[in-house]
């Protein structure tokens, strides 16, 4: 089998400023992309995987330095040494890219049809008429329903999954020989992720092209990749056929990546993390099975009855449209347990969380916290309860104020709720909490932008803990994190529950994570409750069709992996 692309000794460094040494992002990697096959490039954030892929098309920022010894051979020439003009003729035509965020990759002021047709006219020299016809064909091929009508849609009129399909249609428009997919499913729900993965696999086979698939989640590549390349801090740790990587991983890092994702069939007391494999005796500990589930006799801390939330959207000049986001949802949260809330985007699960906190006003219903209806309290009475229900948001990059130091972030809520005797006392408590969530004491004086995503989520958790809450709502709190970091944060959340007896409402679209952390699971769809049962029960015997659909879309790749012991 011949190779379409051969990367040899690729080194990439970035010049950060005039004084310091350039930062080495990629430290001499070599791998091949064979014709007509899929290569997965797997690694955590900052492993250099995206940078390596972008260097193929010369899409690196100006401060990147690539030594002359590095080569990327494509069709008899070295892409690192071709002129910008030659590269432009290759980009989009021979090699095309799909990015992570379809929302920001599409131009919002043009219809999707115009955007695809533009590519066809530019690279294929098609007449506008031929391009329009081909556009409809392409949209059909990527599975957009009613394509003849949808060509005239603007990007915002489509869902995230459909936008990603349009991006794929654009990428395959010129029959590229190589498709680079940079985390194409990370921003999508599990069900949509599954569809997009299937689509990419199908197109790869039908167009006889090669795919370079970049992801942080080893789990998703199991189904579609032929070869897997595992990267860590700029170096390749292991590469080989997908079967070997999954069934007989050699490098501890690969083993760790395979093990740290929660599995549907097992629930260890602690999730294995990277450090378990890379340090100490090289084995994870505390893998014994954890008991989950609820019993009717559990004391209830929070009870929700008939919760409704209707948004009114402005339509036209004077019109209003009512959009029900949550429809008659009732549930109860036992003390010290975790209630998982699962559903696709737009199912209303986040709205439920925000309404409980009164960050949204509920339209009707009751939220009984120790028998007191939170929705009927005045703002002043609510203050006392505000402290006791806290929320951790999805995006750790957005939920911390960038202009406050970690110390200020932690001390502020204590000041508001008069926790601690004086400033000194509060600062002491902040230091203890930092230690508790596994951050150094120096963090107190730093700003959020100096931390990684997982560390920031720890800060957000510490901020909630300052108020000693009883209920913690985790709104997709680990969804934006790499799988390996996700495992650490899940372990932390579990430890805190064991230690302080916190009750969690855990909102996520990732069923494997929900299964791992929850005692009871509630499935939502289009604002309504679909099914609710103990977590083992719901995974073993899902009653509703919708639940079964959700379950079937979990990537199966990692289930091939050997069980860590």
């Amino acid at each position: 089998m011949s190779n379409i692309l051969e990367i040899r000794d690729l080194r990439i460094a970035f010049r950060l400023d005039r004084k310091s040494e350039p930062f080495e992002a990629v430290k001499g990697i070599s791998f091949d992309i064979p014709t007509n096959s899929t290569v997965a490039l797997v690694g955590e954030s900052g492993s250099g995987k995206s940078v390596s892929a972008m260097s193929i098309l010369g899409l690196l920022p100006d401060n990147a330095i690539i030594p002359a010894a590095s080569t990327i051979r494509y069709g008899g020439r070295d892409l690192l040494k071709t002129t910008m003009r030659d590269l432009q003729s290759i980009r989009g035509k021979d090699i095309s890219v799909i990015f992570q965020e379809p929302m920001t990759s599409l131009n919002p002021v043009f219809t999707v049809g115009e955007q695809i047709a533009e590519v066809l006219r530019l690279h294929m020299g098609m007449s506008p008429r031929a391009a329009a016809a081909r556009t409809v064909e392409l949209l059909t091929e990527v599975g957009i329903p009613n394509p003849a009508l949808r060509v005239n849609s603007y990007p915002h009129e489509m869902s995230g999954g459909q936008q990603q399909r349009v991006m794929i249609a654009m990428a395959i428009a010129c029959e590229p020989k190589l498709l680079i997919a940079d985390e194409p499913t990370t921003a999508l729900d599990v069900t949509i992720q599954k569809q997009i993965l299937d689509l990419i696999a199908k197109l790869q086979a039908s167009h006889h092209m090669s795919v370079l698939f970049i992801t942080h989640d080893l789990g998703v590549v199991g189904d579609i990749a032929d070869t897997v390349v595992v990267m860590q801090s700029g170096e390749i740790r292991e590469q080989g056929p997908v079967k070997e990587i999954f069934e007989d991983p050699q490098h501890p890092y690969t083993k760790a990546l395979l093990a740290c994702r929660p599995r549907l069939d097992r629930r260890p007391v602690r999730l294995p993390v990277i450090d378990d494999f890379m340090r100490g005796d090289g084995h994870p500990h505390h893998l014994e099975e954890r008991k989950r589930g609820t019993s009717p006799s559990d004391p209830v801390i929070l009870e929700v009855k008939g919760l409704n939330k209707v948004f009114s959207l402005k339509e036209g000049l004077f019109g209003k449209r009512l959009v029900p986001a949550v429809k008659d949802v009732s549930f109860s949260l036992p003390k010290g347990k975790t209630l998982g809330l699962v559903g696709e985007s737009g199912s209303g699960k986040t709205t439920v969380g925000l309404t409980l906190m009164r960050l949204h006003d509920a339209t009707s219903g009751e939220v009984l916290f120790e028998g007191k209806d939170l929705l009927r309290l005045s703002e002043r009475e609510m203050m006392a309860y505000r402290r006791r229900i806290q929320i951790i948001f999805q995006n750790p990059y957005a939920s911390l104020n960038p202009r406050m130091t970690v110390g200020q972030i932690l001390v502020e809520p204590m000041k508001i709720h008069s926790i601690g005797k004086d400033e000194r006392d509060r600062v002491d408590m902040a230091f203890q909490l930092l230690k508790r969530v596994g951050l150094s004491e120096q963090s107190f004086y730093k700003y959020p932008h100096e931390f990684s995503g997982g560390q920031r989520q720890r800060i957000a958790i510490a901020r909630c803990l300052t108020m000693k809450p009883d209920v913690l709502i985790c709104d997709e709190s680990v969804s934006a994190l790499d799988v390996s970091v996700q495992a650490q944060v899940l372990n932390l959340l579990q430890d805190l529950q064991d230690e302080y007896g916190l009750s969690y409402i855990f909102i996520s679209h990732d069923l494997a994570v929900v299964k791992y952390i929850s005692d009871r699971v509630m499935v939502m769809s289009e604002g309504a409750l679909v099914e609710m049962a103990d977590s083992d029960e719901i995974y073993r015997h899902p009653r509703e069709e919708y639940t079964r659909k959700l379950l079937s879309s979990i990537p199966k790749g990692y289930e091939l992996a050997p069980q860590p012991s």
Partner: protein
Amino acid sequence: MSAVLTHPPAPPAQESPGLWTLAWRRLRQDTVGMVSLAVVAFFLAMMLASFTGLIAKDWARERGVSYANPSFLAGNENLEAKAMAGKQAAKAPPVDLSDIDPLAPRYKEWEERAAKIAVTETKRAETLPFGGDKWGRDVILKTIKGSEVSIFVGLSGALLAVVIGTFLGAMAGYWGGKVNDVLEWFYNVFTSIPYILLILAFAAVAQATGKFGKGILSIVLILSLTGWTGIYRLIRAEYIKHSNREYVKAAQAIGATNLSRMFHHILPNVSHVSLVQLSQYTVGFIKAEVILSFLGFGVPVDQVSWGTMLAEAQNELVIGKWWQLFAAGASMAVLVTAFSLLTDSLRDALDPKLK
């Protein structure tokens, strides 16, 4: 949780760089930014020195002949000075009116008495370093003194406008709804009136009623009360954007009040907009003071500003005396350019792409 740590660990020896420290570091790497910062600092120092009387204290002394030539143009003919000298020379001898003047017999006595008083005729210089104005005042000193009013008006006017604009913008953007409607309506009324007309209307009212105070203060008020609209709009947009951000929701979740969310949480995140606007407004108001003074609504006659200098210059230019125009114009151009460049650098330094 009892206090286990009796003493919190001391802050690290090298304090973690805050956003301002980082911004300062970035600015220091920017040569253009640093040069313009130096120029602006020089002007500010000059203004302060002049204000405290360290320099240019006796700017009003008539030290040269009328329209004294700049030293480097010493050879040029100065017709105005000659005409003036000629006028004085022509005074003597006066026409003899002793026949009909009833006071004539006393002239002698008066002359004797006058002779006893020592009159020292000041020696007026033929040339001054950068020329003189109509009354022979040194143009350089005059420019330094003028900077006092111009820069003060520019800076304090801009500061006040930015405070008004930021406050109203924050209100409209954060609260939305009715508050926003009222403020938007107010804003629309303000912006629908042509700018110069609005300024003149304010100036006319200010001078007629004297309610805004006199002189410089009234100019500052006029400029800031008419100039807040632009920054209002920008800050309002920023607040609309930020009030839905998760960190603000998070602040609400921990129980922070509206006021705290508006000014403690959001304001530091949008302050770069205000700051950059501040420097742009300073530039604009220095120019606006010139226009106002030129139109006669500016500073009182006993004071000098770059605006009054430019106003005088229009008559001088006709007779070929360009130095006053040049001195005021060039200082203004240098300061304004430096300030604008500094603004650009500040924006780059203060708006870091936060990870």
